[in-house]
């Protein structure tokens, strides 16, 4: 069964930001469309609309010309739309076959029983179709990331999906596994499936896709056949017209680096990273999904294991080696996911803000906390950062995304950090708060602290970073400074296409 997917004028808006603005795309049966765009350009929103997670305000989705209502994830399943996610939903101790057919277990002879043999045969067939040699009876936990992905694809095919959407599938695959993946996509294409392939790697788009579509700020800015377009044209579509160079930096950056990382290693992901944190400098760390940015941060702070490399710290007493624990104490770390490790959701706002600097409020031998002082500081922080909250005693969980992120910032500003590490500081934040956070980062750098900025939003990187290190395949691939930080160069560097044929 083959199908054509058509999205007509789809618009989806969130408070303060228009995620999708009247997007119309068509994918024929047997066509692979490459969907590209920077993070936040609307790719994931588009996917969620197709997946029945978001209902668009305007526009609709058609399959084979027939209009389809996608209100719940199960509607997408029934419509034959399948997703290959970045983090895979699977059950480690169940076998491959059980993982594939968990929601549609084949009935056995006796009532309620599962015909494991039939499930394994069907799984074997589906995997065989994709040319994979994975044993259907093997427990999922023994499979590699690539193999797990193949199982997820096989599950989609086995469910009779005609439209398959790949969400940056190749980022954590080895070369061998990438080739296997490409072979599978070509096989699906030959069987007449309509495929949307989302990726940052333009070489993959050129090699695999028939057509391309570029999203920027929620609007479809360009589409057409891959054969008739050059890579630089696509890059330009992705980043928009060459932005003017970043505002002249007046900040004085200089002196010996406060922190030097050399040869930082972590099995499988970091292969010898060297970085210098200078005083008063916003150092950007740019890389694609899964290139190891968060892993680098967590390894040097001792939150995850580090398998090699050394760190030296330079304060007025000259440079000396520094341990993970001491570095964590000197560092303010705005984490990637505030709800899991950024905030105490059930605690009051003031308790969140004072959590990092409790010593300031502790008096006397028993280190008794001066709650009044804590609350006073919290109230002043709320005003300084204009955090919209019913009161400083409100539970952090009751605040909007933007205000929650400001509380996290307030928590760290309270400590006047020497080193500030920001991991996707403006993700899920409204535009207003985004600007304010940007100003905050600027003022912190001005006051002399060394800032490491990790963000996937290219405009933010270009606007804020004094210097950008590009991380690819576990090493620092290249560096850009001052005026040479442009979106085009960053995208190219991250994608490993450098200036070869720009």
């Amino acid at each position, binding site marked *: 069964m083959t199908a054509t997917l058509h999205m007509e004028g789809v618009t989806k808006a969130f408070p303060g930001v228009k995620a999708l603005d009247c997007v119309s795309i068509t994918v024929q049966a047997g066509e692979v469309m490459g969907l590209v765009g920077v993070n936040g350009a609307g790719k994931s929103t588009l996917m969620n609309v197709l997946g029945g997670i978001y209902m668009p305000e305007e526009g609709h989705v058609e399959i084979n010309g027939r209009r389809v209502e996608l209100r719940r*994830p*199960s509607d997408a399943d029934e419509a034959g739309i399948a997703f290959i996610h970045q983090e895979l*939903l*699977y*059950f*480690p*101790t*169940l076998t491959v076959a*059980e993982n594939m057919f*968990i*929601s549609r*277990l084949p*009935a*056995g002879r006796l009532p*309620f*029983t*599962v015909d*494991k043999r039939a499930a394994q045969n069907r799984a074997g067939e589906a995997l065989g179709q994709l040319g994979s040699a994975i044993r259907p009876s093997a427990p999922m*936990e*023994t499979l590699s990331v690539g193999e797990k992905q193949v199982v997820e694809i096989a599950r989609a095919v086995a469910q009779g999906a005609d439209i398959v959407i790949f969400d940056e599938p190749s980022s954590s695959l080895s070369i061998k596994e990438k080739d296997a993946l490409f072979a599978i996509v070509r096989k699906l294409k030959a069987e007449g499936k309509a495929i949307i392939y989302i990726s940052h790697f333009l070489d993959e788009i050129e090699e695999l896709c028939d057509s391309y579509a570029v999203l920027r700020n929620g609007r479809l800015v360009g589409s057409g056949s891959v054969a008739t377009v050059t890579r630089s044209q696509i890059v330009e579509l992705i980043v928009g017209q060459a932005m003017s160079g970043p505002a002249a930096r007046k900040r004085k950056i200089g002196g010996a680096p406060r922190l030097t990382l050399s040869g930082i290693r972590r099995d499988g992901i970091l292969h010898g990273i060297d970085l210098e944190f200078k005083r008063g400098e916003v150092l950007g760390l740019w890389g694609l999904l899964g290139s190891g940015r968060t892993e680098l941060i967590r390894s040097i702070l001792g939150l995850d294991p580090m398998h090699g490399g050394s760190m030296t710290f330079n304060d007025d007493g000259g440079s000396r080696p520094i341990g993970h624990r001491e570095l964590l104490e000197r560092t303010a770390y705005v984490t990637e996911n505030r709800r899991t490790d950024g905030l105490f959701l059930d605690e009051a706002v003031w308790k969140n803000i004072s959590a990092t600097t409790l010593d300031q409020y502790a008096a006397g031998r028993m280190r008794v906390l001066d709650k009044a002082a804590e609350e006073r500081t919290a109230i002043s922080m709320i005003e300084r950062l204009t955090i919209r909250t019913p009161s400083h005693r409100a539970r952090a969980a009751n605040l909007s995304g933007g205000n929650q992120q400001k509380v996290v910032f307030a928590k760290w500003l309270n400590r006047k950090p020497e080193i500030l590490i920001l991991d996707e500081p403006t993700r899920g934040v409204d535009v207003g708060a985004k600007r304010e956070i940007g100003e905050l980062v600027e003022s912190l750098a001005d006051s002399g602290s060394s800032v490491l900025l990790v963000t996937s939003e290219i405009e933010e990187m270009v606007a804020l970073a004094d210097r950008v290190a590009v991380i690819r395949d576990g090493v620092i691939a290249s560096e850009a400074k001052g005026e040479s930080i442009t979106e085009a160069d960053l995208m190219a560097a991250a994608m490993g296409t450098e200036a070869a044929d720009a």
Partner: protein
Amino acid sequence: MHESMIQAKRIGLEYGFYLLLLAIVAVFTVISNSFLTVSNFVQIAIASTFLLAAAAGLTLVLVTGEIDLSIGSTAYVAATIVYLTADAPAGLSIAAALGAGLAIGLFNGWIVAYLGMNSLLATLGLMIAYRGVALVITEGTVKQAGEGLADLGQLKLFGVIPLIFLTALAILLVFQWILRKTRLGTYWLAIGNNEDSARKIGVPVRRAKLAAYALCGISAAASGTLLAGYLGEITTFTGRGMEFQAVAAVVIGGTSLFGGRGSAFPGTLAGVLLLIIINNGLGTRGVSPFVYPFVAGALIFFAIYLDAIKNRARSS
């Protein structure tokens, strides 16, 4: 086909306990000549019957990532029902007792799955309440079971293997069959692995948990009924402290407290036999009865340490 290192380590952890079981049997065989005899193994079978029945049900609940500490009291409630229906035919008496177990299991399941209460604390409270209710009925005294049932307790297959042990073993095997062969069993494992993903994919999480608790209630009731049959009377010791012993046996047998991993057969069976054999083995050597709690505690500690490693390997 090359087996990767992880695979070998996984098998080592999975079947480590069966080796330990064999080792213990070997040690006791050497140090006490009356250990490795048919009649002694019949005694071991009888002694493990009651713990085995209850532990089988507990395994299913643990696989879903929950727990049920009320199995000891459920056994006593069932035994009390056996006393209340003493003059009815044995079949009716057993049915009534198992019915009570089912009712308790459904109630436990409703509280944990539908009301969302923490299963450890809730079943801890229910453990006291159920035993209180049964004691009100028996006024704390020893009651006689019906004649028919008492005779059942003595039956032996081929004159050797006690029927009650076979019943408990049958319950365990049926539960293993459900766990491995039915849709419900796959759902339990999925829920234990990752409840959110299971719910997202459409697994009926609440109904599956309710079924697990119901079966656990029935098997706990079976344990109490079998004991009433074996002794011919119902004492207030029925099921006392059985919940902690059952948790220990199930964890020793390889079922993980993190959920998603475990087996009634051979896992829980091995765990129960291990505990009972150590107790019996020490008995044949005339070792002072005060040593058993020590050995049991150390064994549980060792089992959960391995469980933690197994899951840290999985979750890191």
